[in-house]
């Protein structure tokens, strides 16, 4: 078990290195002098060309690319992410302010969609081929066909502007208590989670129906277990494995979607900052944010993967499938 986890985590390293490299090459190709992103702007303005050239040498900007890459990566890990060219603020502080908000939003969306998706999926499977199942199937296919931002705009119009249940725009933590800041989260998180909820619902239903046909479900019934126990212990438990695989595939889409949803609600997270940075050609900031979001996505995938392994003794205990002792 431990061996599996360790190897899974070790595999993360090369993947992060490759993503990092792609981002770094992107930085290299981006227009603009890299040095502008490495020195605080007020200091930069008082330097002569010779100073800058000396600085370039001392900063190692003339070193081979691979050396610079690892130095950049190392600095990144230390928290030195450079400076935003446009606003002149250190990127680390921008990230520090905004990343938690984005993670909160995505996580909330994940929780909401998992609860709704599993609930409706389970009901749909248990009542398969009834009216309830039919309705939720139709809702499911409509759900996965809606653009997230369209749901967002509709939600904004109905719940924030017309009904005034929630604030329409923005998110500031300053001077807000937990309940108030939760109010800012509800609409974006729900809009973001809706599509995933629909996908999860469809998938849960099918995974459960699939498991229902398995022989061990028949065995469970033959033991005389009541239906709820059959569903809970033998059907749902076993469906969780394929469901978590779907989550794994869908998670990057959720994180991508957060960028758009933040834009709709003017939610101050890394996503909306990312768009501002792109429009302002602030490449250093763009790439760091993308690297971070990718890392979050990668880490979350590994977590889900480990969760799947925990569920399945065949993965957990190594694959000597069918082997007698």
């Amino acid at each position: 078990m431990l061996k599996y986890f360790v190897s899974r985590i070790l595999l993360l390293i090369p993947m992060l290195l490759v993503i990092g490299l792609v981002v770094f090459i992107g930085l290299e190709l981006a227009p603009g002098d890299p040095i502008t992103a490495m020195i605080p702007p007020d200091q930069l303005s008082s330097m002569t060309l010779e100073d800058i050239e000396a600085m370039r040498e001392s900063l190692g900007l003339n070193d081979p690319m691979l050396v610079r890459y690892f130095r950049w990566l190392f600095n990144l890990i230390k928290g030195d992410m450079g400076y935003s060219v446009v606003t002149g603020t250190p990127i680390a502080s921008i990230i520090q302010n905004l990343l938690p908000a984005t993670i909160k939003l995505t996580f909330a969306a994940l929780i909401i969609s998992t609860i709704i998706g599993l609930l409706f999926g389970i009901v749909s499977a248990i009542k398969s081929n009834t009216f309830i199942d039919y309705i939720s199937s139709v809702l499911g296919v409509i759900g996965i066909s809606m653009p997230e931002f369209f749901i967002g705009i509709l939600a904004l119009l109905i719940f924030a502007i017309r009904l005034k249940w929630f604030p329409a725009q923005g998110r500031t933590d300053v001077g807000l208590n937990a309940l108030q800041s939760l109010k800012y989260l509800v609409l974006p998180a729900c809009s973001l989670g809706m599509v995933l909820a629909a996908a999860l619902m469809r998938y849960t239903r099918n995974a459960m129906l699939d498991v229902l046909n398995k022989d061990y479900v028949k065995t469970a019934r033959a033991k005389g277990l009541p239906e709820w126990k059959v569903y809970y212990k033998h059907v749902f438990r076993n469906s969780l494995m394929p469901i978590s695989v779907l989550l794994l595939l869908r998670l990057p889409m959720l994180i991508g979607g957060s960028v758009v949803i933040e834009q709709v609600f003017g939610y101050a997270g890394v996503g909306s900052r990312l768009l501002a940075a792109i429009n302002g050609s602030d490449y250093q900031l763009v790439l760091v944010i993308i690297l971070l979001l990718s890392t979050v996505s990668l880490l979350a995938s590994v977590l889900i993967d480990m969760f799947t392994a925990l569920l399945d003794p065949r993965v957990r205990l190594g694959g000597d499938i069918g082997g007698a002792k």
Partner: protein
Amino acid sequence: MNKQDYILSINDLKTQFKIGKRVVKAVDGVTLNVRRGKTMGLVGESGCGKSVTAHSIMQLLPKAGSIKEGEIIFRPQNSEEFDIAKYRKTDKKLRNMRGRQISMIFQDPMSSLNPVYRIGDQIIESIIQHERISKKAAIKRTVDMLEMLSIPQADKRIMDYPHQFSGGMKQRVMIAMGLITNPELLIADEPTTALDVTIQAQILELMQQMQEQLGFTIIIITHNMGIVADMADDIAVMYMGKIMEFGAKEDIFLRPTHPYTRALLKSVPVLGNGGNDRLEPIRGTTPDPSDMPEGCSFMPRCDLATEKCKNAPPYEDVGNGHMVRCWYAKGGAANE
């Protein structure tokens, strides 16, 4: 014979499946009596309805299937007899019966155990469902049962997961799970089809030993005439949802009367004959169950078929409870 000597009496059972708009009559009027403490073999080819019959007894049919007609009278030793067919699939009465009074083991031991739970937990689940018993006592009983079924190091192996067991060992676990509550009837649905011959011999031997020790009744379902010759006291031969012939083992093997039974016996090679006798195949193929012929269902493939067979033949006793469903059963052409 006294009614109480039969642990199970099935009368004119009809089980149907609805697939889309088609109705498949999988079991179409089965009548059977199972003697207490004996072994009954139910033989037939795939799709003849033998498995559906077994699942009907447990009311373990899939959603599309349901019992349409007939009764399944179960007579437990220490309680009132009741008609299984009268209850809904999820009725408490049936739930209490399943796994406690009647147990069932399935064809494929590989997929019959839930891969995510420990072997021990899956067996104990069965005890705890039906008895008020401490966890410790349940574990003890599980280990004892596994030891009885000659699983080495049973106390350690209950902590293992199904994928760590071989096919034969898994089938032993299934048997243990079935017998742990001391049921009166064990239904074994092709229990050895997925196993190798030497493992098959082990499992069949074990089932016989356990029956001697615990005295339960067995219904064994198989397509292998050899297995029923070994195991069964009574044999029912099924074809297209109906019992074609029923009788004591001797009736079936020494005095086979239905043309289908005879054809079946002649179409399988017998070890020791060395390919001397040429096999006599049954011509044609089994008809589509949703489109069965009128009259005798074996007629299209039967060498003795005449005009008469276009009407459904009666199910008659030809002596000593030897039942045959054929127009020619009594002194007719089949006894030439």
